[in-house]
């Protein structure tokens, strides 16, 4: 589709390595605003990581406070059982969110792409996005009105069809299902918009050609639409892998109110930090654990990036 404006070059040999310095310098300039933003709001504040090894006090400030060595990690290692459980829960929930979220986002995007009625697409697409705006506190209240043991709508329906009511808030493993569903509900629409936009950019001539060859609708989806989405799926997955050890405290707080009976599966790292270190006011402990999350995330993403590179060089993040 671009051939008209920019005819294919006849000679392709003299390309990359002849790039002039002037060209590269203009690239640096284009990146400059972004680089400044990153330095000001991300890299300079990173000097605060030093606090992990310090005993922060006001008079000393960030650099003058006494060194604490690895004291701040003591807490983490001395409560290693809980730390391992928290890590397991975080990874487990995030993997489940990622798998189910991606599946539903992609499925919704493909389905939207197949629909013909413009008005229907427009309305449903807007509506799907709604949950993204609702705070977890409100979602928690709504979930409660659905799942409450005595008055919840779900249990009343179960009783209606002659089944035993379920105490959802007392079964940690059952509640994982609730969390996964809540996450799909809140974020699948958001993901679908990204994938749908990717599909909007796909050249329609691919479909026409395939249709002339007699491909069925299902074949169009599996042979064209899905492959078109793969690079984006890989990208989004790669981007989320780094955050695998980070959890959503506001979600767990809003939906479970830190219900002790559910902690065996909902005690993610951020919750663990909140109910131990932060409640005691020990921010040194908290930042030590944040550092652990980041380093572990970096390792994960380096590995994943390598894997993506083997699959397809262009899919690499860096």
């Amino acid at each position, binding site marked *: 589709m671009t051939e008209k404006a920019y005819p294919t070059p006849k000679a392709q040999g003299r390309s990359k390595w002849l790039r002039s310095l002037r060209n590269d310098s203009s690239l640096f300039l284009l990146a400059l605003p972004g680089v400044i933003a990153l330095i000001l709001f991300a890299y300079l504040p*990173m000097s605060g990581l030093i606090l992990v090894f310090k005993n922060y006090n006001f008079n000393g400030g960030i650099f003058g406070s006494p060194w604490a060595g690895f004291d701040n990690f003591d*807490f983490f290692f001395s409560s290693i059982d809980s730390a391992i459980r928290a890590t397991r829960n975080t990874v487990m929930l995030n993997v489940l969110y990622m798998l189910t979220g991606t599946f539903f986002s992609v499925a919704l995007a493909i389905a939207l792409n197949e629909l013909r009625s413009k008005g229907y697409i427009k309305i449903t697409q807007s509506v799907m996005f709604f949950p993204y705006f609702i705070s977890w506190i409100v979602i928690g209240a709504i979930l409660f009105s659905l799942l409450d043991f005595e008055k919840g709508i779900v249990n009343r329906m179960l009783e209606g069809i002659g089944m035993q009511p379920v105490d959802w808030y007392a079964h940690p493993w059952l509640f994982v299902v609730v969390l996964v569903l809540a996450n799909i509900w809140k974020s699948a629409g958001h993901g679908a918009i990204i994938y749908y936009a990717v599909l909007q950019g796909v050249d329609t001539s691919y479909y026409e050609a395939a249709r002339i060859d007699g491909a069925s609708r299902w074949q169009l989806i599996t042979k064209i639409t899905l492959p078109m989405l793969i690079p984006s799926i890989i990208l989004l997955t790669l981007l989320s892998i780094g955050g695998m050890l980070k959890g959503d405290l506001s979600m767990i707080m809003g939906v479970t109110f830190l219900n002790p009976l559910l902690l065996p599966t909902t005690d993610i790292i951020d919750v663990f930090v909140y*109910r131990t270190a932060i409640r*005691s006011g020990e921010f040194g402990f908290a930042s030590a654990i944040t550092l652990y999350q980041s380093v572990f995330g970096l390792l994960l993403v380096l590995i994943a990036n390598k894997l993506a590179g083997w699959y397809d060089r262009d899919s690499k993040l860096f």
Partner: protein
Amino acid sequence: MVRRNTFGALLALVFTLTLVLSACSSKSNEGGAAESSSPAAASSGAASTAASSSDANDASKADFSEPVKLKLLFYTGQSKRMAELASNELKDLVKKEINAEIEYVYLPWSEYGGGKTDLMLSSGEEFAAYTDINYLSKSVSKGLYADLTPYVDTYAPDLKSNVAAASFDAFKQNGKQYAIPVGNRASSAAFYSVMVRQDLLEEVGMTTIGSLADLEQYYDKVHAKYPDMIGFASTDATYMLMYEYTDQNLNWINNFIAVNEAAQDDKLISWYETPEFKKYAGLMNGWYKKGIIPKYAVTNQPQLMSDWNAGKAMFFPGTATRPIEGIAGITKAVPTAKLQNYFLSKNDRPKISRGTYNTAYFVSANAKHPERYVAFFNLLQKNQELYDLFTYGIKDKDYTIDENGRVTKLTSDLFLDDWMMMNDKFMRFEKSVPDDFIEQYKHWDDDAILSKTAGFNFDNTAVKNEESKLNGVFTEFIAPIASGFVDYDTYFPKALDKLKAAGLDKYIAEYQKQFSAWYANKPKS
């Protein structure tokens, strides 16, 4: 090979860059610290004592010659009328009285005792805000609060005479005044009473409650009439039921440690290991099984509070002032609601006062004019006229007072919250408050004793680790037992193992050591 090299180089580049950057920022930070270090130094440690003694020598009279700007931090939000008042009448008044201009800053409650308040303190901003004992001891050990000792006598003479000395003591650490109590109200036996819906009690033909048996009878009767109502709208009855499960007079320093106020010794009690805790957990478990505590309480504690406010609950832990604080919320849903405090089987055990349940203000360590903040706090409780202005607004515009001294508010806008300001000497009751309540309130503190722990503050440096771990064990293993959600006999042995593994013994030993040392040196009254 080539690619691996570039990648290594890249990592190196990034890390060098970060180091360089942090070096730069370190310089700039130090520059900044130097700029603002003079007031910080002045207010910290020895320097401040020197400064203060010279102050005291110079004049026992307050010095308001220099005009200053102060920043007051409040939580919740600012009402329209308060904003108007702050930029008109209050502005003139404060200017005239203490030659200061006040900036009233409002933050959401989530930032109280942490969050942005912590950031503002740690980054050395100048302001004052209210605090509690826990937040105070945390912040003082980090050097975040200004020592206000030198200014109290000179700049807050009225406040000092209008607020109980015990309240001042409660906010001291190592003999220094780190926060100024504002307000003076009956505060003994907080949470030791049961606040009952008196209208319901009378509706089912009862008049009063004097024991656990009465309370349960009240529940049964109301439950028979209104099966949808819940009984207890909270998950903690440790204080309230104390009179039923022990003959001692217990008081709690924190979740883990109790003292017996009836005994004249310095012994700390490891609360969860006592037979009393077992008895208490059994009572709560009974309540939970019976439905007095609703099943949903395990997960949805905020709902308890909403149910209480919606008039759908029967009783709640009480304090001297809660019946008037809480009534406004309920009468929106149930106009006929009445609240009344009762003690269960208290007999002649004296009420315990900690002196801490009055609001206190700290001033940030960096403040250039801590004395002027103190002078401002003085205004809040100086006399009836100013108290009325800060609490109720302008007479005949925002409120009226009838011949009995009862107040009627003409606006729903709040000024400074009255729970914060409440002072027995100045407070006014609304027309709806029954006379017998006022009578009870006036004599509330009559039989109160000051806790032997009042004024003691724990330095947790040696057991930070244990404290954090114990908090974790508490939320997961102890809280469900203490609230009766699970059965003591089945779950406690494991919970105790967890507590021991988290270092409970070491924690209590450290606490005992510090407390004994403090107790031995305490001036006997």
